[in-house]
């Protein structure tokens, strides 16, 4: 917009301002005023062209927009604009800490010993209320258990099957192809057994919650007494990481609750870490293979990209470097 002004406009404005300023100081130091006005005739040209340039306009705009965006990113609100919230920050829950999971990096697989311990924690603790619908016994094979172990575990559970020749349904021991047994036959039974609160299915819970594994670990280890002034209803428990602060699930992990086969001390945080690793595997069973394929894809595609750049430059080199010489036809008109 500035650049559309007539080029003299800004000069007139600045020189007029300079004149009044010069007359104001001329009473005290007339020599220095003349010196200032004479030397500024060259600098005013530079100043004017600086003020008129599109680059100045663009960079000032960019600086302003950048500063506002930076402020908004840093403080979450726009500067100089008040906000009123109907909710309190505690309603959204504490943000979980980013924990250094053993599978965090681009090249890191799951820690399968941890998955195995986590399955034990799930089976002995979480499975009392939480189902794991999308995981079958066969999914554990080659991940945390051998086929024989998984088969034995499946056989300990009875599954309905049928109908048989008499048209009756019957119970049979589980097979590898059966899915994990649910603690309640349906959601209504689950609600009735848990004071109206439905324990969510844990198959995809790591993908289904903001903060993922960090959030679930924080939730499992984050139970504290409610701070002063926070009222928690009877039967509810306070956890700052849970949105709203009050949840029906009580703290379940205590030191030494399970006994690990491999002798790992079963502290609260160890059990929480293991079970979250297990749930992360349940949500992303393709995780290891995906990362491995990703390594291959990145190597191959970056190589192909470099090759394509080279081929393009190779083909276009002569075209870009050619010089077209124009020989004007001999002038035949003037003679």
């Amino acid at each position, binding site marked *: 917009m500035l650049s559309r002004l007539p080029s003299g406009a800004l000069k007139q404005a600045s020189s007029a301002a300079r004149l009044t300023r010069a007359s104001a100081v001329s009473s005290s130091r007339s020599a220095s005023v003349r010196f200032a006005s004479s030397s500024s005739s060259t600098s005013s040209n530079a100043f004017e062209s600086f003020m008129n340039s599109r680059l100045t306009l663009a960079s000032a705009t960019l600086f302003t927009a950048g500063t506002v965006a930076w402020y908004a990113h840093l403080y979450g609100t726009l500067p100089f604009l008040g906000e009123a919230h109907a909710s309190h920050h505690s309603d959204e829950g504490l943000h979980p800490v980013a924990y250094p999971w053993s599978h965090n990096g681009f*090249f890191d697989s799951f820690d399968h010993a941890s998955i195995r311990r986590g399955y034990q924690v799930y089976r002995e603790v979480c499975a009392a209320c939480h189902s794991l619908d999308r995981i079958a016994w066969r999914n554990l094979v080659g991940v945390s258990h051998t086929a024989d172990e998984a088969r034995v575990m499946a056989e300990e559970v009875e599954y309905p099957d049928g109908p048989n020749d008499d048209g009756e349904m019957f119970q049979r021991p589980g097979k590898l192809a059966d899915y994990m047994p649910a603690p309640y036959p349906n959601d209504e039974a689950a609600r009735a057994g848990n004071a109206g609160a439905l324990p969510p299915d844990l198959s995809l819970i790591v993908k289904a919650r903001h903060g993922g594994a960090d959030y679930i670990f924080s939730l499992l280890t984050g139970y504290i007494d409610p701070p002063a002034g926070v009222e928690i209803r009877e039967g509810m428990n306070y956890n700052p990481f849970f949105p709203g602060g009050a949840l029906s699930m009580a703290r379940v992990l205590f030191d030494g609750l399970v006994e690990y086969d491999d002798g790992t001390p079963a502290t609260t945080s160890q059990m929480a870490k293991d079970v979250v690793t297990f749930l992360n595997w349940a949500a992303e069973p393709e995780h290891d293979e995906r990362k491995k394929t990703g390594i291959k894809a990145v190597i*191959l595609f970056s190589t192909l990209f470099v090759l394509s750049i080279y081929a393009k430059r190779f083909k276009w080199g002569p075209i870009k470097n050619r010089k077209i010489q124009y020989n004007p036809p001999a002038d035949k008109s003037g003679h």
Partner: protein
Amino acid sequence: MSLSTTIYNTFFKRNSIYVASVFTAAFAFGIGFDSGVTTFWDTWNKGKQWKDIRHKYVQDEE
């Protein structure tokens, strides 16, 4: 005979040889690249994968 002439005479002169060498090279590269990445992956994740802890749980392997 220069190197490029040797390469030309060996691989590019006959189309049958050329196509066969492309297919062989793709096959060999596939295997080599795959095993290379797998070696890196296994080294990086030493002790974390199932195949590293499987021996503790297998009962008897006939």
